[in-house]
């Protein structure tokens, strides 16, 4: 294995997003912080409780998830897509970097950005609601898995996309509806039927609930969310590996 090669790609990826921190870290942080302020305060959430937890605390795990998922996805997808557009993909294809090194480099870079934004979101939330991490191990596992899965999905999108329009398709038409309808700002358990049952088909619901169980100690089971994340992790890794191995949309 080309350890130095994978490391070089990882360092390049991290430096790349740190060169434009306003766009890659600050902007998403402000976005999720605004959600926090608007939903928890101005819409009257300060007084209400869900499942015995103050609303201002209840939405923190979902917002941390949102920060991680969006930024991990965007980093991997945009970075890989730009590499194709600006022609520097040639540098990667000619170098002794196999699927393993390419995955390690791109995914670890994207996870770093996702986790950084997630951590900063959580630190902002601390100011409003205090720190709440009941099950540290479970929480960290969920955060890492979320970051991994959405980085991998972003990479697949970056490999697949041929136009800027296509790269925007996933965040706009898939990620945003799934996350906003995924119980980030509310409990799907309290939805009327048939919306409650329909919501349970949204994988994000189970990821957010699992994270909520870890951070807030709520009784919801995290097993389904964990299972989904693990399945997505395996499935997306196999797909991305295969795309890189055969050079799908990368080699003529």
């Amino acid at each position, binding site marked *: 294995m080309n350890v130095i090669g994978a490391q070089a790609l990882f360092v390049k990826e991290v430096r790349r997003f740190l060169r434009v921190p306003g766009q890659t870290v600050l902007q998403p942080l402000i976005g999720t912080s605004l959600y926090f302020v608007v939903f928890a305060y101005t819409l009257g959430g300060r007084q209400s409780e869900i499942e015995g937890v103050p609303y201002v605390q209840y939405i923190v795990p979902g917002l941390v998830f949102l920060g991680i998922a969006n930024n991990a996805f965007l980093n991997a997808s945009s970075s890989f897509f730009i590499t194709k557009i600006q022609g520097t993909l040639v540098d990667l294809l*000619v170098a002794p970097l196999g699927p393993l090194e390419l995955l390690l480099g791109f995914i670890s870079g994207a996870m770093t950005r996702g986790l950084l934004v997630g951590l900063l979101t959580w630190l902002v939330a601390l100011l409003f609601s205090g720190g709440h991490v009941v099950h540290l191990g479970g929480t960290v596992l969920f955060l890492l898995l979320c970051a991994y899965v959405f980085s991998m999905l972003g990479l697949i999108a970056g490999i697949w996309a041929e136009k800027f329009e296509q790269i925007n398709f996933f965040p706009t038409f898939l990620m945003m509806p799934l996350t906003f309808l995924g119980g980030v700002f509310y409990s799907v358990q309290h939805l009327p039927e048939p919306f409650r049952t329909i919501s349970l088909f949204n994988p994000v619901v189970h990821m957010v609930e699992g994270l909520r169980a870890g951070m807030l100690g709520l009784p919801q089971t995290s097993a389904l969310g964990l299972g989904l994340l693990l399945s997505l992790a395996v499935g997306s890794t196999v797909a991305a590996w295969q795309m890189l191995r055969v050079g799908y949309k990368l080699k003529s």
Partner: protein
Amino acid sequence: MAPVLEVDGLVKQYGTTRALDGVSLRIEAGEIFALLGPNGAGKTTLIGAACGLVRKTSGKVHLFGVDLDVDPITPRYRVGLVPQEINFDPFFTVRESLRIQQGYFGQARDDERIDELLAALSLTPKAEAQTRALSGGMKRRLLIAKALVHRPKLVFLDEPTAGVDVELRRDLWSYVRKLKAEGTTVVLTTHYLEEAQELADRVGVIDRGRLLLLEEKTALIQRLGQKQLVVRFGAKVASLPQGAAGTLSEDQLELHFLEHAGTQTSAQVLSALFAAGLPVADVAMQPARLEDIMLRVLKGEVGP
């Protein structure tokens, strides 16, 4: 010793177009090989198949004796490519780009090597400049530095001097000679036939995916090259003396003679003219050119 690059029956099909049609060739260690041909002949596709940029349809490619179907990664540690299209990562400086490239090839940071290349390619003043701020010629120099930063043993130069000024072209030529002196093998594609003539040990002519000719440059020029001699007379010459060959112009003031294998030499023709006391006013000599040979090969006038 196994050849540095061995291609056997290589075929690449794009839909109904056959970009490579059973190409076979061997490149030996330490040589400079020029692959010539018109646009769309298959030069870049051939290089791409050897460098991992193109998925071949059939055939075999061995790099340093390793079958790329068996191990496509290991031989790449020793390969460098200057691609035809200029590319650069606008987030990084020239030096950072070279450090990243070193890393991709599994090498620890080596600023000494980077400084040496920057100096050789006249990029030292731009070392800390953002790549997006470089001129076209400077970006081309950076591409060359990136291809060489890990000290490859085989370098592919795909149209390395396309659209660059004479200075860079001369710089590059001298650097390619230095690479050869250090034992590096160079595969070059170029539209500037003068470049191939200047640098190559062997040349291959490819057209429509087929390798039409593969020969040592010197032998090829001797075999197919035509020197042109033009003699201008100070007064009309009615006929040529014994021992002189060529064609007199209609106004009888010029002699045109094509020297090639099997004919008299230009020197013999000139000697005959002087010996006959003809009024020679001016002599122009055009040496045998690879360009003319390639055109004749492409037209099918001459072959292997």
